[in-house]
């Protein structure tokens, strides 16, 4: 199978998956017993007001009709109007997306750094107490999900030793001179390191909470692969050539041991993004996940739909990129 055919096939399954997600979300939320229209009306509104509002949001048609209208809108980039804020869903969602992307990428970087450092240390000191301690810490980190790590971090760095911000994305007192919502990225470009430090201080705990389980997975798998590679003949040869242990691990063993870990990171990254929903809530971080929970609580149907579709799109795109990267990196799949 050529790479082109592979990509086309993946794009097709991606489209089917996204369509499936759209169908499920659309029909699930239309079973909602609560009436969003009733909440929007002022007291004393008459029957015709209700009918007018229903017509405005297209809620007077049958559910399949609504779906077709909504879907054709989506294909034209129109995700409808949020019921609570009465603004276009697409704009609302895109305004929050950068915050979630920055948080997820930051968490990924933290996870790679911690996980990589643990794997290398564990390999360097294999057979010692240090390796044992790393194994135990990995086991703990893997067993407990991000939500609980977030709470533990709040206690440690919010109460016991209050050094980091416990909630929000940026201190409200700061005046932000930014033209996009990628605050972290733009603060670096504009050399506003005071704002950058404030942002990082807010992101520290949520990103660490998201990173801990992934760091443990990375550490475990990379250490395992390194261990296997260290026993191969070419590594022994490098040793007999007189290279030091650090050189052997990082220059000789690591490049060959890293591929399975890279694939795993890609798969696990979608789980990390899924975790932002509750972590953003826990730290009152103004991202997509926090907005999603508010939308569900307020029964803002168009907004919920838009957010879920966007998440599904992110997940499938990440998976696609991982697949293609893997195919490009792995010589056995390149011509397979």
């Amino acid at each position, binding site marked *: 199978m050529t790479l082109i055919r592979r990509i086309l096939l993946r794009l097709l399954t991606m489209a089917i*998956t996204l369509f499936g997600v759209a169908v499920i979300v659309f029909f699930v939320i239309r079973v909602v017993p609560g009436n969003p229209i009733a909440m929007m009306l002022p007291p004393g509104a008459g029957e015709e007001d209700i009918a007018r509002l229903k017509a405005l949001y297209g809620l007077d048609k049958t559910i399949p009709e609504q779906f077709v209208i909504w879907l054709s809108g989506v294909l034209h980039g129109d995700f409808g109007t949020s019921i609570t804020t009465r603004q276009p869903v697409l704009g609302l969602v895109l305004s929050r997306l950068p915050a979630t992307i920055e948080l997820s990428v930051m968490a990924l970087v933290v996870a790679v750094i911690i996980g990589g450092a643990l794997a290398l240390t564990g390999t360097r000191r294999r057979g010692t107490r240090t390796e044992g301690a790393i194994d135990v810490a990995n086991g703990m980190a893997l067993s407990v*999900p991000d939500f609980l790590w977030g709470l533990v971090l709040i206690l440690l760095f919010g109460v016991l030793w209050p050094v980091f911000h416990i909630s929000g994305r940026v201190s409200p007192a700061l005046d932000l001179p930014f033209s996009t919502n990628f605050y972290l990225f733009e603060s670096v470009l504009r050399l506003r390191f005071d704002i950058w430090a404030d942002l990082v201080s807010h992101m520290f705990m949520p990103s660490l909470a998201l990173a801990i389980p992934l760091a443990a997975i990375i550490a475990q798998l990379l250490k395992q692969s390194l261990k296997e590679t260290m026993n191969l003949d070419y590594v022994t040869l490098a040793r007999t050539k007189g290279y030091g242990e650090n050189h052997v691990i990082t220059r000789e063993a690591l490049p060959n041991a890293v591929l399975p870990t890279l694939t795993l990171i890609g798969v696990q990254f979608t789980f990390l993004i899924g975790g932002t929903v509750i972590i953003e809530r826990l730290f009152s971080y103004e991202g997509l996940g926090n907005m999603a929970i508010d939308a*569900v609580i307020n029964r803002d149907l168009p907004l919920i739909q838009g957010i*879920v579709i966007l998440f599904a799109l992110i997940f499938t795109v990440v998976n696609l990129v991982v697949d293609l990267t893997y195919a490009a990196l792995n010589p056995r799949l390149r011509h397979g």
Partner: protein
Amino acid sequence: MADARGLVKRRAGARLWLSAGWLTLLALAAVFAPLIAPHDPLAQDLFGARLPPFWEHGADAAFPLGTDSLGRDVLSRIIHGARVALGVALIAGTLTCLIGALLGLIAGYFRGWPDMVISRFVDIWMAFPPVLFAILLIAVLGTGLSSIIIAIVVIDWTRFARVIRAEAMSQGAMDYVASAQVAGRKRFSIMLAEILPNVLPTIVVLLTLEMGIAVIVEAILSFVNLSISTDQPTWGSMIAEGRLSIHQAWWVLVFPLITLFLTVLSFSQLGEGLKDHFDPVLR
């Protein structure tokens, strides 16, 4: 090598017993909650609000882990909260396991169109952020214990289906299955009598892990105030409340958090321990 194997075995044994011990203790506390709990978990006393735990200055020995902002006993609420947590773990875990494992067996053993349909659904499910999906389902189904259980089953069946499908597929390719087919047995009976016993260890491990996940999901839903009614204490709602009064009364957050942490850790370690126990290489 023999030494390392012995070490792994001993370590696995220790964590198996420790986690099983904690979970047994918790199960007993849940069953006998009305007898053990020193106070009514709902009894409010605004004059005895935010009493610290017993070792701090100003504590009341009758409330060893302190009281919350409404003067309710934290220890009694944790004990009663174990009922919801373990109830959800047991019921939701078992139902998820039954449905997911059955679909996984069918997809993996029968292949063909059942596999196509089930795998496509798994793909779609994997594109949902699970927490958002859970909250959405609760908003639709309404709050309550049965809604939480349904939400967990609806979301998590794929965990079983994915793994069991792969295992059933590799078992289905083995000689003993081929000889059963040659002997003219019905395929469904082969699936249940031959394949199922061989994937059972995996199912048991997944079930144990799923119970831990169910406890977390319930806590998360309670945390966003979408679990069950407020007159039933849950660890998640205690944590949500503790998060708000964290600077005035840290113990309202800390004790339920420790309980939840140990419980989730125990389910997970029990699952990992069982995995090692079933592993023929380590045995």
